């Protein structure tokens, strides 16, 4: 980032916003690192798809949202949940399969929820939540609210028919939904060029006559600005947008390892992306602009680490669901 920081007029209290985004990204990073350790230690059993490396996207987008706006997530869900304001205590407890977990130990890492903050849930079926996000937007449209809905999904999800059907319907009805594609260039063991005939995902918006852009998904400010624009556009009733954010997942598809031994990607590729760490980038900016000092960032880091240790203590001392309550929550009682 060069010379004076210019991100006006996107936020009135710029410094607070930047600090908040820094804290959120760091919280996601530290939470995921801890989760990875706990998976390695076999403390956590459920499959965890870590968000490390992609923090700027959830953070940038959710920072531009209101609490009442809705966010829909995927199998790689922790970052979206944390950025929208979900409790990390109940998240950790969910990963442990405890009754105090956000989904009462029924869902695990891929199925987390916090309806009170506009996070109805994450789904492990690729592209499965894209139509749901459009549905929430439809309801805002019917009830003439200026609330918006966000669908987070990966590049792999753009292989599914549900993605295209959703884009068309949202554009047709001018629904207030923002399609945020986190392009990390891989869908499990396959690279994006093995999956898409045209890898420029943002271009697909054109076919539906909606705005589509591709941005650096490791630049939280860019993500914030672009999301803000799309959100405003949606609030004004102009319809959906497609935001492609390029990024990279540092760990393997699932689990804590970097998976270089699987022969799917090179060490050089991983390292080049690690050099573009979204958190380091914002930190450098904050230090340069004098918004935070080195000792302050250090203090923030310590504070977050402490907060995360607490989540582990909480999760560990919580009880497991009772086996005789297996069938609880199949139906709700009217």
């Amino acid at each position, binding site marked *: 980032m060069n010379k004076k920081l210019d991100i006006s007029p996107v936020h009135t209290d710029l410094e607070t916003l930047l600090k908040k985004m820094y804290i959120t990204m760091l919280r996601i990073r530290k939470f995921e690192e801890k989760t990875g350790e706990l998976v390695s230690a076999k403390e956590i059993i459920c499959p965890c798809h870590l968000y490390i490396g992609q923090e700027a996207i959830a953070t940038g987008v959710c920072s531009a949202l209101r609490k009442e706006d809705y966010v829909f997530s995927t199998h790689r869900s922790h970052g979206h949940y944390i950025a929208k304001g979900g409790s990390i205590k109940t998240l950790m407890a969910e990963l442990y*399969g405890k009754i105090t977990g956000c989904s009462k130990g029924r869902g695990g890492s891929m199925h987390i929820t916090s309806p009170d903050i506009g996070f109805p849930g994450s789904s492990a079926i690729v592209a499965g939540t894209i139509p749901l996000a459009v549905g929430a937007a439809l309801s805002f449209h019917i009830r003439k609210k200026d609330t918006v809905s966000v669908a987070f999904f990966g590049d792999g999800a753009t292989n599914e028919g549900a993605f295209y059907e959703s884009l068309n319907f949202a554009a047709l009805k001018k629904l207030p939904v923002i399609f945020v594609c986190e392009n990390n260039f891989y869908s499990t063991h396959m690279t994006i060029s093995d999956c898409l005939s045209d890898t420029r995902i943002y271009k697909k918006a054109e076919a539906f006559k909606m705005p589509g852009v591709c941005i650096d998904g490791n630049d939280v400010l860019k993500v914030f600005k672009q999301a803000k624009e799309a959100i405003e556009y949606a609030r004004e009733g102009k319809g959906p947008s497609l935001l492609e954010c390029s990024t990279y997942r540092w760990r393997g598809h699932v689990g804590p390892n970097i998976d270089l031994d699987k022969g799917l990607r090179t060490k050089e590729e991983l390292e080049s992306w690690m050099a573009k760490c979204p958190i380091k980038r914002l930190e450098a900016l904050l230090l340069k602009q004098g918004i935070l000092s080195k000792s302050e960032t250090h203090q923030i880091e310590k504070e977050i680490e402490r907060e995360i240790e607490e989540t582990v203590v909480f999760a560990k001392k919580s009880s497991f669901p009772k086996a005789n309550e297996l069938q609880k929550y199949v139906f709700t009682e009217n």
Partner: protein
Amino acid sequence: MRKLSYVQAINETLHQIIEKDKNVFLVGQGVISPWYVGATTVGLIDKFGDKRIIDTPVSENAITGVAAGASFTGMRPIVMHPRMDFMYYAMDQIANQIANWYYMFGGMKNVPITIWGIINRGGEQAAQHSQALQSMFMHIPGLKVVMPSNPFDVKGLLVSAIYDDNPVVFIDDRWLYKIVGDVPKEIYTVPIGKGAIRKKGKDITIVATGWMVQKVIEAGSILQKDGIDVEIIDVRTLKPLDKTLIFKSVKKTSRLVVADAGWRTCGVAGEISALVTENIFESLKAPIKRVVLPDTPAPMSSVLERAYYPDTNDIVATVRSLFKQHRRTLGGKK
């Protein structure tokens, strides 16, 4: 005889058939990956290349239709779904197109396709990564459904599925992959529509599917010590079902338990019970019992998983309860 594991038997069959028959090809998510489909497809891509071993984008619906379309021209495609849960996306192609085609066109065009679906559950994977959908496919007219429970059958039934002129849903189970058994080296078939008796007995018949066959065999030896001599039937094919074999056994033992790790309502076990009561009601001395999954989505927490999946103990307890409740009819047995 030579021993192979269940997974090696699948792998060998694919190698042999694809080698032998230029009309057979394999398409599906993860077919080139060493880990995505539990080593079932190891070595295929190196031997046959990417024209006949086709890894695909995450597009279940289209890919299933694509495979069916190729079968119209005389090929015998195998379309693989790494988890049954993902097959819901392919349901239109399977249930509306493929299953109906032959009948709908008055027998003018058959669809000789193998639709391979893998059951992959446990390990806290939760509701969207655990499903065993055999009953759903069994419900649909026009589909044959096979579910091999051991290495010998998995080879023979896969060959039969590929060479059947109808669509066959071939269901295997990752919980069976390490089971070792006799497997002839040469290509052979296990007939579709024929069950097998795994243990002869006189007191009670237990009919089981897939993974549950292994559990029932374990239960059988425990019950033997109680003095209960069970006859175990492995149905192997769910549709068309080997009614003759089941009826003959129940006529002899007068008691029936059906074990299937699918949901209770409208399940395989319900269907088999109905057939027995409809046809040979007079030979029953006790109510038919089902050892199945409760009508509940797969939970995440290990504690709930243990309560959810039926196990050897559940089979033993169910059989014992029948003999306790109906001791009067047992005549001298303890």
